[in-house]
Structures are given as C-alpha cells and as structure tokens.
C-alpha cells in the first residue's frame, strides 16, 4: 500500500465500489448513469456541471474523470475553466451571503 491516500489507480476501482453492498451499489450505478447521461440537458452540459461539482467537492477522482470526459466531448479549455469559475464564485458567494447572519447577530447584540 502506498504512502498516498489519493492514488491514480483508485479511479479505476470505481466500477468495483458495489463490493460489500452489491444491491445498493448496483442501484447507485443505475441512478448515476441515468442522472449523468443526456436527457433534456446534453452530455456536454451535464459534464460541465459534473466537473464543477467535482471541483467544488474537492474530489480528485471525479475531477480526473470529468476533465477527461470534457476533453472527449470536445469541450474547450475556456468553457471548462468558466464553469469552474461559476463554482468558485458560488462558493465564495454562498460563504459571504452567510455573513448576513453574522451581521444580524452583531447588530442585535451590540450597544
């Protein structure tokens, strides 16, 4: 076993995650495939959304998988980066919008 928690080979293990709880695992894969394949939104749109969620959630496996998927779908570098900026701006924004709660408490408590 390596000294790294995150090994590149882990991603190849993704198809095996049904192990130890196969019924749930298989249902998960059915759901995952259905949710991420083209529907009203295209594969391209869903891959950009998935890439953004992957970065927001700091999942190196998913970033790897969806960067490759975006490349495979011919998505531009600029499009991928713009999607990640939406994620980054939202994370900054959802943090800052919670400053409202701090400010409400400050304003109530202080003399």
């Amino acid at each position, binding site marked *: 076993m390596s000294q790294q928690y995150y090994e590149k080979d882990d991603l*190849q293990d993704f198809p095996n995650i049904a192990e130890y709880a196969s019924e749930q695992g298989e249902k998960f894969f059915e759901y995952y495939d259905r949710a991420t394949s083209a529907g009203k939104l295209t594969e391209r749109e869903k891959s950009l959304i998935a890439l953004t969620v992957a970065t927001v959630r700091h999942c190196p496996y998913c970033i790897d998988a969806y960067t*490759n998927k975006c490349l495979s779908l011919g998505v*531009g570098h600029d499009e991928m980066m713009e999607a990640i900026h939406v994620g980054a701006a939202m994370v900054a924004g959802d943090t800052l919008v919670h400053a409202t709660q701090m400010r409400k408490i400050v304003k109530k408590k202080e003399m």
Partner: protein
Amino acid sequence: MDLRQQHELLYRMDKTDSFMDRLKGSAAYPLRAQSIEILQLNVTRRCNLCCRHCHVEGSPEQTGELSRENMEACLRVAAIPEITTLDITGGAPEMHPRLEWFLKEAAGIGKRLLVRSNGAILLEDPYRRYLDIYAETGVEVVLSLPHPLRERTDRMRGTGIFERIITAMKELNKRGYGNSETGRILNLVHNPVGAFLPGSQQALESEYRSRLRQDYGVEFNSLYCLTNCPVGRYLDFLKRSGNLPDYINLLKQSFNPEAVQNLMCRTTLSVGVDGRLFDCDFNQVLDLSLSDGTPAHIRDFNYEKLSRREIVVRSHCFACTAGSGSSCQGALE
C-alpha cells in the same frame, strides 16, 4: 520511431494481458473475417501535412505509391458483387499522380466510393482541381477535422490548417457537399487531440455541427469518431508525454466485448502502397501480414480464402474495441 521500436514498446505495455487473451474469453474467438465489403486502399503515404497523430506517419518526405498495375487489380477486385465500398486513403490521396484517372474508373463500377482527404490540400495547386473532380465523380469526401475549435486542430495538424479545412469545406458546400438533399456526402472524422478516448459520436456530432454552423457557416453530413490507435506518430506522442501506460490501461479497461463482433477488420481488406494485403490500416503500418495461407497481394485476391481468414491481432487492437468501438466508419454502435 522505427518498426522494431513500435513493436517492442507495444509488447512491453502488454506482456500480461494481451488482446488475444481477451478474445479467448469471448465468443468471438478465433476472430475471423465474415466477408469483404470494403476494399481500403492506401494509395500513398506522401502528404503535404505532418500531423502529430498520423499513424502512417504521412509527410512530404514519404515516397512510394500504389502502381498503375496494382490499381487496375484493385478495380477488378472492386467489381465483384460482394464488395460494396472502395475506400481510398493515404497520406494525401490527391498526391497520387493517377488519382484522377483512378476515381473516374472507380466511379464507373457503381460502388460506394470515398476519399479520405486532409482538406487543406484542396486549396493548393495543382490539387485544387480535385474539388471539382470529386463533385463530378460524386465521390464521398471524408475530411479529417480532429476538433471543432481552431486552436486544438491546429495543435494537432499545424498552424493555420483549421482555417484551410474550413475554407475547403466552404468550397465543397458550394458544390453541394454536406447538403442532405444533393446526395453529395461530406463526412468529418474526429480524433481526440491527446491521450483520451473520443466521447459519444452523437454528442460530438451535435457539438461539431452547432459550432461549425454558428462560427463558420459550414455544413457536413456525419461525424465519424475514431479512437487513436497507439501506433506511428501517436505512439511516439504517448511515449514522450508519459501517457503511454495510462493510455494502454484506459484502452484495456474500456474493452467492450460487443465491439468485437462489429470490428471493421471482419468486413474489410486493406491494400498497402505496394499492393500487399492487410487486415487493417494499423496492421499495415506495423507490417503485420495476413495470417498464414491467405493470399498476400491484391493481384492474388481470392474472395473465398480472404473472406474467412483469421484476423491477426495484437495489443493495439484494444483501440478498436474501447468503449463504443471505433472503425474507419466511426463508432461501431
């Protein structure tokens, strides 16, 4: 990279889990041809471009071309009823000095006739005339356009090439190509610009169509998605960039048993520049001769023997069975 190096590299990558072993575990073993419907001719490896993914390592320096005698043999073979399609590739087929004559002869046979062009050459003298020759003979034109974005295609094929392909498409569009009503077919070929697999053909086709229509006002009929095969210059790129082990693993992990049934080698015969026969263009590049006991040259063509030959496979064959599969006609499914 010379031939010996390519074979060594592929062997080193695939000592334990060979393609043959996978076949043995599937219903398709032994892998045999089931017919010959497509006769694919590599008429010359000469090319005005020098693309980074070219598996035949086409370039202006390449020499040799299919002789008139061998071309005539091909025409005789193409005329037999079992053959439906004559697929002309290179190099840049336009750089073969007798292509015009050959196309006109081939058009007379009444089979599906297609030429794989790099597009850019159609703006250069003396090759410009092929724009009209193609339209006159009604040949299906297949242009390689690795990516719908300029920067990515130019990265693979050379600066300014994307623009030239677009201009060539406009010229072909003017001649009725890419319009579903004229019957003049212009298809595009997508290859991943890097060490990854192509996405779904449907999604990529719609991506190409909307970008090319919106940004440049050009039209095409269908997009063929090809998986890059780890031979020739592409193998070289994989090695130099440190992507080779990952890419081979990716191909193996993506092995799709269903794609085996539809492998294009099962219905295709590939003719080399010297008239020798191969199971496919990739085996031709790797100089993997047909299996023992089958005629080795177009002049010795024998449908009975060739249409049931056992296919010669090596680890590069994983490229054609990855994901939804890949062939010169695009994804298999």
